[in-house]
């Protein structure tokens, strides 16, 4: 027969393992938050760089600074996209277990940064004749917009295929940010999902074929051939 102490020992080991998993979770959460904060700081650094370049274009002429601006904007575009994906992924990993207000706060910051970047890009487009097709995607949570996830899926697919040819922005209309509300009013967003391509609004779900046709009406992208 075995000593009954075995049950107590096993309970202690189980408890230690349970606490270890929780501790690991706290550690992973802090690491996730650190990475998101670092990414946000990178985005802010790049905005400052763009502001400097913008100022330089006034002093040294737009021809010189446009080249640098274009590469900085392209980099920022990628950083924004990666950050957006990371926030969503980490939020899912964290909130599968516990609701964390950190991610909501970061999502707001991120969306604000997107509006900022979009405004800059719009301004630069006129100065430097950027030829990227600008796409805005307005969405809401699943309960209010059952097709928003599907539209996001299609846009991700297109972005993977012709990323360098487009500038894609996604705005979470549930965040109640005044800047997003203003954009929504400006582009007459009445239902969700809604896509704005080169300042023209198209609401409803578009599959890849339909969206490709729409994009090709504006510009001859590599997707059109």
């Amino acid at each position, binding site marked *: *027969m*075995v000593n009954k102490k*075995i*049950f107590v*020992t*096993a*309970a202690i*080991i*189980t408890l230690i*393992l*349970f606490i270890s*998993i*929780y501790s*690991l*979770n706290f550690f*992973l959460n802090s*690491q*996730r938050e650190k*990475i998101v904060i670092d990414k946000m700081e990178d985005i802010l650094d790049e905005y400052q760089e763009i502001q400097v370049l913008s100022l330089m274009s006034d002093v040294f002429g737009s021809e010189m600074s446009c080249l640098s601006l274009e590469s900085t904007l392209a980099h920022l575009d990628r950083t924004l996209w990666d950050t957006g994906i990371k926030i969503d*992924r*980490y939020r*899912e*990993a*964290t*909130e*599968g*277990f*516990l*609701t964390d207000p950190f991610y909501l706060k970061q999502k707001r910051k991120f969306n604000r940064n997107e509006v900022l970047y979009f405004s800059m890009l719009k301004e630069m487009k006129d100065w430097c004749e950027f030829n990227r097709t600008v796409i805005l995607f307005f969405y809401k949570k699943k309960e209010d917009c059952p097709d928003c*996830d*599907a539209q996001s*899926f*299609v846009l*991700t*697919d297109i972005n*993977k*295929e012709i990323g360098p040819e487009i500038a894609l922005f996604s705005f979470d209309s549930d965040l109640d940010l005044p800047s997003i509300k203003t954009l929504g009013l400006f582009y007459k967003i009445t239902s969700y999902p809604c896509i704005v391509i080169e300042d023209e609004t198209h609401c409803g*779900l578009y*599959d*890849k*074929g339909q969206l490709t046709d729409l994009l090709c009406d504006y510009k001859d992208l590599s997707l059109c051939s």
Partner: protein
Amino acid sequence: MNIIQVVLVQIVWILSTYFIIVFLLALLKNKNRLYDSPALENNEKLSRVSIIISAYNEEEKIADSIESLRLIDYPKELYEVIIVNDGSTDKTKDVAIKYADGTNIIFIDNAKNKGKAACLNQGIAIAKGSYVACMDADSVVPKDILKKIVPYFRNKEIGAVTVSVEVKHVNNFLQKIIQLEYKLGLSLFLRVFSLFDCIHVTPGPFSIYRKSVLEKIDNFDVNNITEDLEIAYRIHKSGYKIANCMNTCVETITPHNFRGLYRQRRRWYSGALMTLWQHKGMLLRKKSGLFGYFIPFNYALITFGLGLFLLFFYLSISNLIKYISLYSLTNYNFFSNLTWELDLLGISILAVFGISGIIGMIAIVTFGLNAIRNSPAKKISLYFGYFLLFILYQFFWLSSFFLVLFRRKVRW
């Protein structure tokens, strides 16, 4: 956040981890004593043993069983074989009757099928032995079996002794996995459970009982489809212990396909649930000893585990349907949304619980295989197959819960 999912994951994790740790601690502590068994003493007076075989349509296998019994190394005058033909419709009767001599091998012929428990009771009624072994007609035993297990009964507290159950023919991958399952579940696990006096089944292929205990508890329950499980509850209830001997074994036939496995497990699991209900009065009672806590713990783990499995199954199927509909929007361009970046920070705590559960399962199989003799090679395919079988069993349990809840008849 899905509260039900989070709570279920934690309950199942705590129950299964605790079970695995108790098991591993007991195993490691007794690793060198697993195969110990009391030996016959010099000039020990051997007791008479009766071996009962209930046979239904076993014309192809019963001869091997009887032959193995004839070769047993035990004084011929001290053991008898009682074969009960349970209304077989094949040539079982013709095969068995050839061996009957009326003294050492007795043949009882039932014109109608009565069921295994009733046949065993018929045999017990005429058995002359102090100990009664019940054996399946598709099983064979080694020569030393009686000499190895009879000495256990020197301990007056022992009411029954079980032996390791091995697979007789391993012809395909399914049987290889079942072989692993038997070596662990019906051999090593029972041996470790015996250390806690918690053996919950006296396997049908071969188990031996003290006849006075059988008489005291009124033999096998003829209304129970898992009589070998049900009797274990009543042996505990009557205050006797069940021992396990890993030093000898019985070889038995196992299902060779999924249909056969489903039929077998449906009976086992439905019978287990009915027995649990039948003996609910024993649960969580101090007088039932550890057994009274072990059983509800076990079934709580099975029930919560099944709940968690069903939830994940539902989520997996709904995700599959969701992704099929999403990919239909991108002309099924499956590579566009795939990312090859390995980001460990993207792993949620629920996944960590799941991964640690799988590690626990691998640990229990590995330590188990290290502890037993003649264990199969530790191949990845075997681990994977065992894991798949474990998933399959969830469906069997579900089907059994359904059968019991809706009072459907379960046949042999």
